């Protein structure tokens, strides 16, 4: 049964105090099949929108036609260091500027994955080329004309190994970038490039005239970005706030709010207090300790509480080259010794979803029939015996300031001891953890990955990526290698998704990672905020508006 239908039925069966309305699926930007969440309006509590795994409804609400004007204040926890997403790697801090000031050639619906035009008005895919037709007569915020030269320049920088852009390997199949005229870009392909369009949907185009010959990190444009988007950059005071203003000359549907102020507040608890004081309009992560009380707080009546799950998973990576950890049975046993449900309860108040593989649940790449290995210390002990392990000593490496990593560690310590496995908890700072991961100097470590709509797992699991890549656990599996190589060559979506599911099954069998969970996030919006929906790729700021 489709998830949203089940949810709607469930809510219909269990009455809640106050009236509730279920929204029908609506049209989304991507023209996809549509999704919905259930919206529950209650008299003495905030309006609750429970988004299913497939995503938040992009079109619900709103009391009346959008009103122009006003200033929206948004809380941001992690401040970017540089406003250029080719060199700013922190996914959580990039979205301030990406999609708002600078734009991508294509747009990808964060939930369905559907690709639609943006700066490229249309595109054609053939076996050996991707042709993009840019919108004509577009201008950068400083008045200079936007053209294919900017696209070629940006892709060139993205491919430069010295720059280290995340998108670099997505352009491996591209042999040449041609710009026959100012509005056409042709990417010549040496082989099928299934992830190319997705990559282009996340590659912000840079203005060549401001970056040519300059270092990406130091150019002025990386501190005061110039783009083509619905918002213009106004100012950035570090450790304080970043201000954007509406672009009245935007080529597409104009934004409604006049200004957006992103306030950088590291402490989630402080941000929460400021939200309650009305100094912030959008609190995109309610601290986990307040999750439940916020749902029923009468003081928040009229506010909107969105409950959704970012595409990110928390996991333990095992060093598959060390001693007993090389044996998949041992790894499977260790997985069965981790009480993931209890961890969810402790770390996230139970607000988390299970995940069994490196793909986004609810997408065709994810094999929903695979169930997580159960928490079963007895079975784990048997497996360990089978593998010839009497006792084992492991060091669990984690970033000391991460509360959830520490909670996982102490939980593992207690449960593992029951099966004769001793764990030492090694709390280190981030730089040390990175260093140890990249040099494979660890037994087990806790990490979190974010997922693309369709994740390219090559860098995570291919054996070639163990030295210098993201395959920190040095997992080497010929079967996985074959699948990963094939996935990269398969242009047909259905065929590729089938391969993804095969990889999912393999990874589940061999447990190079123990997948823990995907945490749920609660986003709070003040009553005057409308049209704003979250996703980890960004919020719909261009569609947001403020009532009086």
């Amino acid at each position, binding site marked *: 049964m489709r998830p949203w239908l089940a949810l709607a039925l469930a809510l219909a069966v269990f009455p809640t105090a106050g009236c509730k309305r279920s929204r029908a699926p609506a049209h989304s930007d991507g023209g996809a099949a549509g999704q919905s969440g259930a919206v529950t309006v209650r008299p003495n509590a905030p309006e609750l929108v429970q988004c299913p795994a497939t995503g938040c409804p992009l079109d619900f609400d709103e009391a009346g036609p959008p009103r122009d004007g006003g200033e929206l204040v948004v809380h941001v926890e992690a401040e970017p260091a540089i406003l250029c997403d080719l060199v700013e790697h922190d996914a959580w801090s990039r979205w301030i500027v990406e999609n708002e000031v600078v734009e991508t050639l294509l747009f990808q619906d964060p939930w369905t994955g559907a690709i639609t035009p943006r700066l490229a008005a249309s595109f054609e895919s053939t076996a050996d080329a991707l042709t993009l037709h840019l919108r004509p007569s577009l201008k950068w915020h400083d008045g200079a004309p936007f053209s294919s030269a900017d696209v070629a320049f940006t892709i060139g920088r993205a491919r430069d190994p010295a720059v280290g852009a995340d998108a670099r390997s997505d352009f491996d199949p591209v042999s040449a970038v041609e710009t026959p005229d100012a509005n056409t870009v042709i990417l010549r392909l040496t082989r099928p490039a299934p992830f190319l369009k997705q990559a282009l949907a996340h590659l912000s185009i840079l203005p060549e005239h401001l970056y040519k010959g300059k270092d990406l990190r130091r150019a002025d444009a990386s501190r005061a970005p110039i783009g083509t988007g619905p918002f213009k950059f106004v100012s950035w005071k570090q450790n304080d706030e970043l201000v954007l203003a509406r672009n009245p000359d935007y080529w597409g549907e104009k934004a409604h709010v006049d200004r957006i102020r992103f306030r950088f507040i590291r402490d989630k*608890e402080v941000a*929460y207090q400021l939200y309650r004081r009305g100094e912030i309009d959008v609190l995109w992560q309610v*601290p986990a*300790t*307040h999750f439940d009380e916020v749902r029923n707080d009468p003081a928040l009546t009229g506010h909107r509480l969105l409950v959704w799950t970012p595409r990110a998973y928390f996991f333990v990576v095992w060093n598959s080259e060390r001693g007993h950890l090389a044996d998949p049975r041992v790894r499977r046993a260790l997985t069965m010794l981790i009480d993931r449900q*209890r961890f969810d*309860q*402790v770390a996230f*108040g139970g607000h988390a979803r299970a995940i069994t593989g490196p793909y986004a649940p609810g997408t065709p790449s994810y094999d929903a029939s695979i169930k997580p290995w159960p928490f079963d210390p007895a079975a784990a002990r048997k497996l360990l015996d089978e593998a010839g392990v009497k006792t084992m000593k492991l*060091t669990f*490496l984690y*970033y*000391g*300031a*991460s*509360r959830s990593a*520490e*909670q996982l*560690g*102490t*939980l593992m*310590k*207690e449960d593992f001891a029951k099966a004769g496995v001793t764990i*030492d*908890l*090694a*709390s*280190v*700072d981030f730089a*040390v953890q990175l260093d140890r991961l990249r040099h494979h100097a660890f037994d087990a470590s806790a990490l979190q990955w974010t997922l693309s709509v369709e994740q390219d797992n090559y860098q995570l699991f291919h054996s070639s990526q163990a030295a210098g890549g993201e395959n920190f656990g040095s997992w080497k599996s010929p079967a996985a290698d074959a699948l990963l190589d094939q996935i990269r060559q398969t242009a047909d979506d259905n065929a590729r998704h089938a391969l993804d599911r095969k990889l999912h099954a393999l990874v589940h069998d061999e447990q190079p990672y123990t997948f823990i969970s995907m945490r749920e996030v609660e986003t709070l919006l003040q009553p005057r905020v409308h049209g704003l929906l979250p996703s980890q790729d960004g919020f719909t700021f261009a569609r947001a508006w403020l009532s009086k």
Partner: protein
Amino acid sequence: MSAWRRFSSTPGARLGLAILAVFVLAAALADLMPYGPEEQHPGGVTTVLAPPSMAHWLGTDDRGRDVASRLVHGARVALLVGPLAVALYVAVGLLIGAAAALGRRADFVIGRLIEIGLLFPALLLLLAIQGVTSRTSLAEVAFAIAVTQWPYVARLTRAEALRVAAAPHVEAARAVGAGRLRLLGVHILPLAATPAITAAAFGIGYAVLFETALTFLGFGVPPPTASWGELLAQAQASGLRPWLLWPPTFAIAAVVLACNLVGDGVRAALSAPLQAAGA
């Protein structure tokens, strides 16, 4: 009057000792608590962050562990790290500071030593140790505290020592021919120790609070060790839940109070030589 009589006749000094004795006893008998401090499933069922109830008198923490148990066990960490750190830095600070009274040149060198001590990047040192060993043990935390605090004690002692050295009775002793070391040990040090004693009295409280900050940053005592600092860190992370915030606060307050009361007594015990020598 003997030193002990002077000590015990100071109001509160005996009360202070008694309070400390209670804590020491509690720490020693901590294992008698109904739940273990690290049990995340005490009695099989647990609620996380539960307020005080009949089953858990001080509630549970963010992992369902019994707070009362962690409080009592935490006394062990406080009573180990605190006195260790304090002993280290008071001893070092006292000796170095008082040595400034040995002469002009000594004073110059000591003054610069203290300056360097004040500037020393202790957080970096702590991180370096942790980066290499991947954990911070109680000894390392105590060491970090000592490294940061000794210059303050030294400065206070130095100022007092210089002042006392200029006092008439010391001049008198010098005139009579007392050697510099004897002057230092008998006449100057006991009096110059006053601020150091106060520092020591606050030291244990400070040690726990320092440990709280470290735990909050992720560099505190190795988990899952129970410590008052860890309870406080949890309090901060959970929006100041009262049963996590107030018990360790009162515990620290009680310990610091006790230490200060005892400190008053110690000061009384030491100050008598002044009466004897001066009058």
